[in-house]
């Protein structure tokens, strides 16, 4: 039996398992991920590496690039936070209540996925411009929405909403109503039950939805460029800057901005994943 114990101590590439097909599925997954994700991303890195370190650093610290990156990330972050709050409320309404038209609302949640983002951008611009249906009421208060960062945030909320709703919805559906009843028998009010029992249980799902909405929003281009006004240093987003460099045939510069976005996005998503792993371990599911 010494053979068995020694092989146990070593890390083994393949764990013995009753579920067959590990080699096949792992191979497929890696090949697929490489073709679709890793190789194109490596291309970005390789293209920007062609610039040399000094030139890369110059582009990365260029005031206009920095401003565009900042705009991209804070608007995406804010939109994802707003989506996390309202997405949970939408999911709650869809799961907890029966009302006429519930299925229609449920189906409508996915529309931002299906709509060409440019159409969404144009529609939102028409609504929120200072002469638009909604925008005109804000003008009286001295608030302009379209052609400002506020407009960007609204477009990003639009495209990110389904992510939070669709990740929270199934978890909420599975939530054991006895746990809520237990809280009530112990004297907890509805508010106390929601904030100390239900929301903590939904937290990992909300975080997943947040990460997806955020990731999607950082890279969004189509809807934003119509509503943003694209004023340099104010409402110009990084993906637009990349497109402009491409149109100037300045491929390395475009790749450099892309690489910087990639690094930041990866750090943020990785951090979110760590929090998730921690909360899953804690809450005992996942």
């Amino acid at each position, binding site marked *: 039996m010494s053979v068995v114990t020694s092989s146990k101590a070593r890390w083994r590439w393949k764990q013995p398992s009753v579920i067959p097909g590990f080699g096949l599925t792992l191979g497929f997954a890696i090949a697929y991920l490489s073709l679709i994700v890793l190789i194109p991303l490596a291309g970005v890195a390789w293209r920007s590496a062609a610039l040399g370190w000094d030139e890369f650093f110059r582009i990365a610290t260029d005031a206009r690039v920095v401003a565009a990156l900042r705009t991209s990330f804070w608007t995406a972050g804010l939109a994802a936070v707003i989506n996390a709050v309202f997405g949970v409320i939408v999911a709650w309404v869809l799961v907890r209540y029966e009302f006429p038209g519930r299925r229609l609302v449920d189906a409508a949640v996915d529309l931002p996925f299906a709509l060409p983002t440019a159409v969404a951008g144009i529609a939102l611009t028409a609504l929120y411009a200072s002469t638009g249906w909604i925008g005109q009421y804000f003008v009286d208060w001295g608030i302009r929405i379209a052609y400002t960062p506020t407009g960007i945030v609204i477009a990003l909320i639009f495209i990110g909403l389904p992510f939070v709703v669709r990740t929270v919805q199934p978890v909420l559906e599975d939530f054991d109503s006895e*746990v809520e*009843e*237990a809280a009530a028998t112990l004297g907890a009010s509805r508010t106390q039950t929601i904030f*100390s029992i239900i929301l*903590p*249980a939904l937290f990992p799902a909300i975080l997943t939805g947040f990460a997806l909405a955020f990731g999607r929003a950082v890279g969004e281009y189509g809807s934003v460029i119509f509503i943003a006004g694209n004023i340099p240093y104010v409402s110009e987003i990084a993906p637009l800057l990349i497109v402009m460099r491409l149109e100037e045939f300045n491929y390395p510069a475009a790749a450099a901005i892309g690489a910087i976005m990639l690094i930041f996005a990866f750090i943020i998503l990785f951090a979110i994943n760590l929090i998730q792993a921690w909360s899953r371990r804690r809450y005992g*599911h996942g």
Partner: protein
Amino acid sequence: MEVKVKNVRKEFDKFPALKDVSLNIKSGELIALLGPSGSGKTTLLRLIAGLDFPNVGAIYFGDQDASQKSVRERNVGFVFQHYALFRHMRVLDNVGFGLKVRKKGDRPSKAEIERRAMELLDFVQLKGLEKRYPNQLSGGQRQRVALARALAIEPKVLLLDEPFGALDAQVRKELRRWLRDIHDKTGHTTVFVTHDQEEALELADRVVVMSQGRIEQVGTPDEIYDTPNSPAVFSFIGESSKLPVSIENGQLYLADRPLGLDAKGVPDGEGQLFFRPHDVEVVETGETAIVGTVVVSRRTAGTRQVELEVGGAKERVEIEIPVDHPATSRSRIAFRPKKWSVFAG
């Protein structure tokens, strides 16, 4: 706290789950609601807790009408079959939750909440596990946490819904004794729901037998077992054998043969004879008795169980006979119940 249930009716989508149920629970009593699934026992428990509200009737806690009070205001401890613990909280925080959510004036300090939670964990024999999360505990340990959590709010009434239903037989037996201990120490009025008659008879001061939305009988375990008041109770509690009989002049007849058994005051006409398989004596085949042919014979621990075909009626009854009885398949046995009940109909 005394609990009175008065003429309660509860419907779910027009389906009556409880039909005109009344019950008095004495202060400090440990009472079992026993019945098959669908008998309304859990519904009754939830009505007492305030998790559901009756369509008709009222529930009194002492002299107070609790019917209009919400579950929050009733101050009941409720233990669920599947524990319903807060999985994102440590055991200690689960137990302290009921104190933590109290209004400012009534809320003990943080240190005091922790001290009381620790005390309760010690009481339910879970000392040392206070920092664990519920998913790190076994089923029996989880149910102990759930009980400690319910006890923390110093409930007027303790309600348990099939508390041991999800546990394996060994743990169930152990927790049963332990619950009796806890009840004797705390003196809470306790109501628990079960479909396990052994559990109800062993544990409770009084047993409420329910069937199809009604209370069939309320009594001590002895009364329920020895003098069931209806065919439903007789066949639900313990092993039972049943024979259709006719009653003439206060005597029982099976297919016109006298059985030598008294009708116990049941009027002449059709009736049903009930007896326990182990409460019989085997007699000579010549005597007036129930005579049957052995169809199946099974050896169980201390006795032999035989199934008899009785009379031309092709009725089957089961009795227990001594293991050294020479009965074999197809042989005829005559017996008389030592205790029996007769119901008209």
